[in-house]
């Protein structure tokens, strides 16, 4: 089952600049062109964006 992707325009929750999303998946991390912060695509329909969680030093298991 090919994961759903979406093209959409949204708004950066940090700097409120508009954000152009192309073929993004749910939970994908995108960077805001305006302020450069990492955003997470929480929902696809309608598209919603939130600050992506911090990158943690992660050794993996």
């Amino acid at each position, binding site marked *: 089952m090919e994961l759903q992707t979406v093209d959409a325009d949204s708004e950066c929750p940090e700097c409120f600049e508009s954000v152009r999303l192309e073929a993004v*998946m749910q*939970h*994908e991390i995108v960077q805001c062109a305006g302020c450069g912060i990492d955003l*997470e695509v929480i929902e696809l329909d309608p598209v919603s964006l939130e600050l992506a*969680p911090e990158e943690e030093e*992660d*050794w*993996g*298991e």
Partner: protein
Amino acid sequence: MAETSPDNSGEQLVIKAGGGKALDLEAIAADVGSLWRAGRRVVLVHGGAETTNEVAEQLGHPPQFVTSESGYSSRRTDRRTLEIFEMVYCGLLNKRWVELLQRQGVAAVGLSGLDGRLFEGRRKDKLRIRRGGRRMVLRDDWTGTVEKVNGELLRLLLGGGYLPVLTPPGASFDGEAVNVDGDRAAAALATALGAPTLVYLSATPGLLADFPDEDSLIPRFEVARDALSGAAPDAGLEPLSAAAEDRMKKKVLGAAEALRGGAGRIIFADGRAERPVRAALDGAGTHVVVRPGPREEAR
């Protein structure tokens, strides 16, 4: 052989036995048994990755591996995977080790890091990963760090004459079971117990300068104590982690952590050898030791 180990039987010894099926569990158990009978206080940590993959396939929930943004590969641990992980690590393999040791007359007691919160840390329920060229946030993950070790429970058992045989998972601060890295847990354990020696047994002679050429064994690596306190997780051991291939990288990070925690000697030795632990204590494998600096009182 670089040095023969004084039979400092009083000294605490932590052994991490890798999960590879190439390891001869019976031989290791026999060796640990003879050390224990000679009065050496030992804690054994074991893995089980390879067997977990097989059982996960048989149960129709094949393992998935994800690459974290910083490039480390780890097991995607959704709840179903965590339960299969527990069945193999805590059920099949932990009790296999305990049985092998009990049959050697050793008073072995098998526990996971969840029990009594022996390994406790933060659950990382969100992971940033790379998948097919995309950066993604992975949710509902049951992995965690090891930030605290219940040394009190271990001393209670060791004082009672028991040999603790430990395995992931660990516990989150909320008491949830979380998949933790066994190599790193062993390092935290050595620090908590003040064990001077931590032995990593795996299916290779030790750290190889030119992997996979087994003749390129690095016999000894000395590091100055203050070189260890750099910012990088492998501070002081950069040449070793550069040479180490994937799974060994984590063991080198574990070694760096254990040395920072006060261990004096980390040995990477061949778990397939005859009496692998004795051989390691007698100098076999790669010995990573702290060069006593000027301020270093005798350990």
